[in-house]
């Protein structure tokens, strides 16, 4: 039964647009899949390889700006940004990796956080390229209806899911986990840790970059504060995986459901007013205290205690 879960989910996701949901619900689904993709990519680097990144906004933003600059400067279709961003973000991720992968633990986290901010400030000031804080706006998006966007992001998400599955079950996946558990031990076993950490970072960055390019095409407007946002991109990415389940295949997806769908549902309860953020914050704290391995990671615990009960370390 269990091995059919991916297929069942895929089938449900494929027929979703045919069920006649409103564009609003479709918008939420599109954001959900986008965030699930970003979550999966973060999960590869930080969940499996143990390099906790606080700077995924850098990759997201570079991807978005690749598409945006293609449109605003080269007059090309911003959709070309999707394939191109793989390359551009790959190069940038490699360069960032050269610098930040020398560091470990909290120093790595802080260095990635800084790299995200560096790119934001650069994008704000390189007016000739990025149009600065005025941002880049698409005169007209390619489609008005949601379905094309939905299927594109679904394809990206499915491809990412399969890629992750393949990587994790391959030799690379074992190297990643070995590095996470003990980098020095992995080193002494003859694993070229720098190489494999770089691979994890570059692959992770590329996928986030594609999601960024998709964001540009879908939303039609970006500025540095939106796509290089520390909180609204980098931290949300981390939260998605933490809530869903670190180093689990389904964690990012479940996390995205919570962070996008549940958040929207809580926000939409009119009577809460501005309190919705506090309520949602409490919910997250609750999840993290009682389910430290995320919803997927602690699913057994949920089953046993139905969400309330003792915490077993």
């Amino acid at each position, binding site marked *: *039964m269990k091995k059919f879960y991916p297929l*069942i989910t895929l089938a*449900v996701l494929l027929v979703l647009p045919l069920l006649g949901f*409103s*564009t*609003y*619900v*479709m*918008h*939420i689904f599109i*954001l959900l899949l986008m965030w699930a993709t970003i979550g999966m990519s973060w999960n590869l680097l930080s969940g499996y390889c143990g390099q906790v990144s606080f700077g995924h906004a850098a990759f997201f933003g570079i991807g978005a700006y690749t598409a945006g600059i293609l449109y605003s400067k080269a007059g090309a279709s911003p959709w070309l940004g999707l394939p191109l961003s793989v390359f551009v973000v790959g190069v940038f991720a490699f360069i960032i990796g050269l610098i930040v992968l020398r560091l470990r633990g909290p120093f790595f986290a802080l260095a990635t956080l800084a790299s995200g901010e560096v790119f934001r400030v650069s994008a*704000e000031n390189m007016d000739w390229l990025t149009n*600065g*804080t*005025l*941002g880049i*706006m*698409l*005169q007209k*998006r390619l489609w*008005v209806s949601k379905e094309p966007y939905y299927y594109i992001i679904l394809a990206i998400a499915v491809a990412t899911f399969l890629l992750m599955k393949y990587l994790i079950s391959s030799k690379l996946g074992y190297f990643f986990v070995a590095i996470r558990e003990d980098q020095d031990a992995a080193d002494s076993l003859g694993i070229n840790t720098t190489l494999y950490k770089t691979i994890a970072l570059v692959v992770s960055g590329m996928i986030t970059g594609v999601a960024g390019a998709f964001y540009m095409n879908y*939303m*039609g*407007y970006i*500025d*540095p*504060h*939106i796509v290089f946002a520390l909180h*609204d991109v980098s931290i949300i990415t981390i939260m998605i995986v933490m809530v869903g389940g670190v180093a689990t295949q389904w964690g990012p997806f479940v996390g995205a459901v919570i962070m996008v*769908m*549940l958040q*929207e*549902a809580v*926000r*939409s*309860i*009119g009577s809460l*007013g*501005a309190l*919705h*953020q506090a309520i949602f914050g409490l919910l997250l704290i609750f999840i993290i205290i009682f389910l430290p391995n995320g919803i997927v990671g602690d699913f057994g615990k949920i089953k046993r205690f139905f969400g309330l009960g003792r915490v077993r370390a």
Partner: protein
Amino acid sequence: MRKAITSALFTVLFAFGAMFAYAEDLNLTIPLPLTGTQAKFGEIQKRSYEIAAAEINAKGGIKGKTLVLKFEDSGAKPEVARGIVEKLIDVQKQPIIIGEYTSACAKAVAAVSEERKTPYMVVVSGADDITQQNYKYVFRLNSPNANYADGLLGFMQAVVKPKTMAILHESSDFGTSGADEMAKHAEALGIKVLLKEKYEKGAVDFKPVLTKVKSLRPDVVYMVSYVMDAALLMRQIKELRLDANLFAGGAAGFAIPEFVDNAKDASEYVVTSTLWSPQVKYKGSKEYAEKYKKMYGDYPSYHGAAAYAALFVAKDALERAKAWTPEDIRAAMKATKMQTAFGNVQFVDKNGYQNQNFIPTLALQVIKGNHETIWPKTMASAKYLYPMPKWRQRK
């Protein structure tokens, strides 16, 4: 298994379906930033929309329907704002969209409205290019950012006659476009712009950049900021004893009462451009301002007045529209010609803008802890104080 899927789908449907209710009333949901750094501006607008709705309902509503306002918090995030508006158009079938505040959100909303052919009235978002996209369904009540400083420039030309200027602005769409326009106008008037620098919005220490300004000795220091930065800038200018002939602000953070509350005596003599003040002589504006003050203890800023007026503009258009279809409402909006508490409203295509309302902008000065209108002279509520004393001469 099927049971599991069905129940999952029902949960999703429930989550989204539970929020909508239909009635004979005219439901109008307004997206606004009610949390986060822009919440102050959202709050002023929310209160003003509510005052306007109460007045409209007291006089029989719109075509006999009671106006029921709801607000949704976008937290100043474009993708959330977009989601809200998709819901309004597609689920609630709202015939007209009003609201949002930051330019980034307004752009996202404008794009949706245009694609979905639903009229959208931008109420107080400044960025020029919102109404420069050849959008047919996007209307803007406030003047574009490029015109914000007109009143202030008039004052500068007639009274201050500066030769040099330094411009500081926050790193946002609003800040940058405001600063660029000011630089352009200044150069055209022969004022030399010595420095144009942006700072991170929400920063706490402006002393490095202010020291730089001080060393350049400009005649005018012009700043474009939202609320907290505006007060901090003036306080640090005071601490540094940075003297200039004029400290000027570009609306937003300088034009709301919180600026005076937060900056205290450092705000004295500061001149700011604005689109409206409680002292203007538009019909109904004084009544609105007094009502707001009575309810909330402070006079509203132009953000509130625009929101207040926006609801009347919408009412007017909805009453004139033959049917409540987007096409008819758009036609009615286009034909709008009315007096509001925010000035005369008419949506015209001019100077590269489409469906843009132009209203004269004013200059305010903080005099004894109050914003007084000082320019243009015909609208002044107090005589301007100029020249202003240097910091060390103030007690």
